[in-house]
Every structure is written in structure tokens, then in C-alpha cells.
């Protein structure tokens, strides 16, 4: 991993409109193809950090560059194109519950179509095949025509991953993707993310609460506290003592 980083934070600060410090002087690079885990106490700023990468949150100062391009000036179509190459996975899955799995997966592809085609669901045969292949990746092809709210939590999260794959993303952001799942399903979902990272070379950034999971899957662990990076090490250098320190209060 000696080439240029895919994402780079430069003096990034974020202050919410009510004065809360979200991020404080963040500086670090994420190399292409890395599996990065962000840990920290509740309120440390993990979700905020993740959402600045696809501009779901705006930063107050500094700059984030993605593939060497500063992203803060993107607007309208260029912002949508930025988001297209960055998939996002959520704790609550955020599927459209009343729609079928197929429609949910296809909805990940809409940024490749003009609005009127998306609205009329005029997806190409190639993209319908792509949806089936995306579901194959998460082992859920048999649920193609099932309504999303009829699936278990773990299955819903896998559909969400398939939806993200439709974007053909270079980066996947996952905000506590396993926080509402049982231990077994947790392994399944984390394994899928790891496989996408290794087989497809997708850069994966995951917020986790569990230190054990972080150690098991991460290439590198970044620790946040009160919006600042207080820890940043390759997995080989991470020790148990380090991690307990991150989770100590103040």
C-alpha cells in the first residue's frame, strides 16, 4: 500500500450549530484497500466522522480529499457522483420496508439513471442481473421478491450491503452495522464486509463498539475521543492495553 491514499483528512474541524464539537483537528490518510475500524465511546464523533466523507455532514474547516480531489466544493450532480462511489451501511439498515428486496437492491443503482427513468423503474436487463449477482454475494437470491419487512435483521443488513454493491463503490462506510444483530449474524455480516474488502479491493471504514470485533477484522484501528483522534495504529501494533485505554473515561 504505497500509492496515494484514497481518503485524506486535513485539519478537519466540525462544530455543530448548537456549539457541540463534532470533530477536532482530524489529520489522517486512509490508503486504498484498507479495512479501517473506528472505535470510541458513545458521542466520541464516530458517526460524524463517517458522514463527513460522503458529505452527509458538512465540516466547519479543513478539507477532505478523495482520490486527490477536495470534496467540499461539490454541489448537485457532482455531489451525487461523489456519493455514488461511496456506499453506506447503517445500524438500522434503512431499507424501504414496504418494498421488495429487488426494488431495495435496485434503488442502489438510481444514480446511474436520469430521474425520470428511476421514477418509472426503467432499469436495464443488465442491471437487473447485477441485482441478482449482488444478492448472490450476500447469499440471499431466494429472497428477491420478498418484502423487506419480512426479513430478519441480519438478512436486512445483507440486503443493504447488496444495495450498496449496486453503486459499484470504491469505499464502503458502515456506521455500527452490527449493533442490532446477534453474535452469529454479526460474524456473517462482518465476514461479508471483509470479503468485499479483500476480493473487490473496496476500502471499508467501519464504526464499531466492540473491541474484540475491531481486533478480529481491522487492518488498522483509529480511536476517537471528544472528536479528536487519540489513537491510530496498524493492527499488528495494537495491544489490549491500548484499547482499554481508549474506552477509559476522561
Amino acid at each position, binding site marked *: 500500500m504505497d500509492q496515494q491514499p484514497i481518503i485524506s483528512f486535513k485539519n478537519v474541524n466540525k462544530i455543530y450549530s448548537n456549539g457541540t464539537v463534532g470533530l477536532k483537528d482530524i489529520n489522517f490518510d486512509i490508503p486504498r484497500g484498507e479495512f479501517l475500524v473506528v472505535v470510541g465511546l458513545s458521542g466520541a464523533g464516530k458517526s460524524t466522522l463517517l458522514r463527513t466523507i460522503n458529505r452527509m455532514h458538512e465540516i466547519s474547516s479543513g478539507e477532505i480529499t478523495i482520490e486527490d480531489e477536495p470534496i467540499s466544493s461539490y454541489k448537485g450532480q457532482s455531489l*451525487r457522483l*461523489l456519493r455514488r462511489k461511496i456506499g*453506506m451501511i447503517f445500524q438500522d439498515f*434503512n431499507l424501504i*420496508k*414496504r*418494498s421488495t428486496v429487488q426494488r431495495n437492491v435496485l434503488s442502489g443503482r*438510481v444514480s446511474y439513471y436520469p*430521474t425520470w427513468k428511476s421514477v418509472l423503474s426503467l432499469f436495464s436487463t443488465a442491471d437487473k442481473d447485477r441485482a441478482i449477482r449482488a444478492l448472490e454475494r450476500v447469499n440471499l437470491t431466494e429472497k428477491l421478491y420478498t418484502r423487506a419487512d419480512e426479513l430478519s435483521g441480519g438478512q436486512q443488513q445483507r440486503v443493504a450491503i447488496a444495495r450498496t454493491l449496486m*453503486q459499484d463503490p470504491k469505499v464502503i462506510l458502515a456506521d455500527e452495522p452490527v449493533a442490532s444483530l446477534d453474535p452469529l449474524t454479526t460474524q456473517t455480516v462482518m465476514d461479508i464486509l471483509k470479503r468485499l474488502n479483500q476480493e473487490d479491493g473496496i476500502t471499508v471504514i467501519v464504526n464499531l463498539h466492540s473491541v474484540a470485533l475491531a481486533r478480529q477484522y481491522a487492518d488498522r484501528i483509529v480511536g476517537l475521543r471528544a472528536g479528536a483522534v487519540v489513537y491510530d495504529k496498524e493492527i499488528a501494533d495494537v495491544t489490549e492495553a491500548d484499547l482499554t485505554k481508549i474506552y477509559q473515561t476522561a
Partner: protein
Amino acid sequence: MTTPEIPQRSWSQRWHVKAVGWTVLLVALLVGSSRMTGVDVGMFFSNFDQFTNLLVRMSQPAWSYVPIIIQPLYETIQMAILGTTIGTVFAVPFAVLAASNLVHNQWLRGFIRLILDLVRTLPDLLLAAIFVAIFGIGSTAGVITLAIFSFGMISKLFYEVIETIDMGPLEAMESVGASKVTIIWYAVLPQIMNQFVSYFLYTLEINVRASTVLGYLGAGGIGVFLQRSLSEFDYGKTAVIILATLVVVMVIDGVSNHLRRVLL
């Protein structure tokens, strides 16, 4: 071992001050407003025999009148459907722009809501009178009146539904790079569709009844016949018209229930 401390309810919580206060206020408002407007509840009961008298005279429906009112009833239904549909088509974009979870620009939202409040303030009888004056006697005036009335009502009902939706799917669609319209189409619409349909049919039902009144002003439909029967004191015919309207309302209600079950 100490017992865990149980938080004390505040004085106002213990004596349900809020609930008592609201009840007293409501009763006072009721009594006060009936005083001021001079509503005489006693008169309702003392003149009750006139009401029963009317009911007795209506209890012999003039069934031979049925074939005559089929055509105007059909026209009424058409007016109601057209008016409700036109109103709804315009209401949807306004409802989206008035929803606080979709539009963060307070000024725009406030402006849209002001327009909607204005539209709802206009009495439909006034609208009907105006449009009859403009378009002449006939169903055009009725359709436009119903469309405006439906627009005001549906846009409010719709934006209140939109404000209750789960925002998660919207966040997801935003993150895939979807355009605003696509986000609404994919993430908002499925969440509100069945309530929209049921409000649409509810408005349609109100419009069927409203158009019987509008007919008084010459706005077309069954109302013209209702007015004629009443002015001729031919209560057997009135009864038939009311029963026929009831059937239409019941059918709409049935369709509404069915669709809601299918769409849920």
C-alpha cells in the same frame, strides 16, 4: 442495605394538573361559546316533534323517483371524482413543500403553509357561488369548487402524514446519490401510499356529500334534485336522494377499506 431511591412525582404530576386544567378549559369554552352565539339547547328538544314529523314523512321513499335520479347521481360521482383528483394532483407537491422533515427552508415552508391556510379558509359555498357566476350553472363550477376544497384539505392531511415517516430510508437514498425527486419516489412514497389512498377516498366521500349541497347553488349534480324535492315538500323524493347518496358513500367506504388492506 439501603432501598433504591424512587424519584418523587412532582406536585403537578401527582394531582394531574394538566389534565384537569384542559378539561375545565374545554367545558368553559363550550359553555361560553354557546352563551355567546345564543344556541338554545332547550329549543332542540322542545321542537323535537317537528323533526320526528319530518322523519315520518320521509319514511315513505318515493321509489319511482329512483330512475330519474340515476343520471344526476352519476354526474355527482363524476364531479366528485374529477374534483378530488384535480385537487390531489396539485396537493401532492404542496404537501411535500410544506413538510418540515423534507423542506428545511423555513421561509419557503411558511409561505406554502400560508397559501394552504388561505385556501382552507375560503368557504366552499362562496367558491361555488363565484364559479357559478363565472362559468354559469352546471357541473364545471362544481368540479372547480370541489377541486379547490380538496386541494386545501388533502395538502394538509398529506403533509401531516409525511411528517411522521421514518427518515432512515431517505438517508440511505441520499447516500447512494439519488436526486431529490428519486428520494421522494423511492423512500417517501411507499411509506405514505396507503394513508394517501385512504385520505383521497375520504375526501371523495366528503365531496359526494358536499356536491349535494353545492347543487343548491346550481353547481350541477344531484343537489339540484335535492333542492327541488325540498322546495316542493316532497319528502318521499328527498328520502330517495338521501338513501342513494348513502349507498354511494358506503361503496366508497368499502373500496377504501379494501384498498387499505391490500396496500398495507
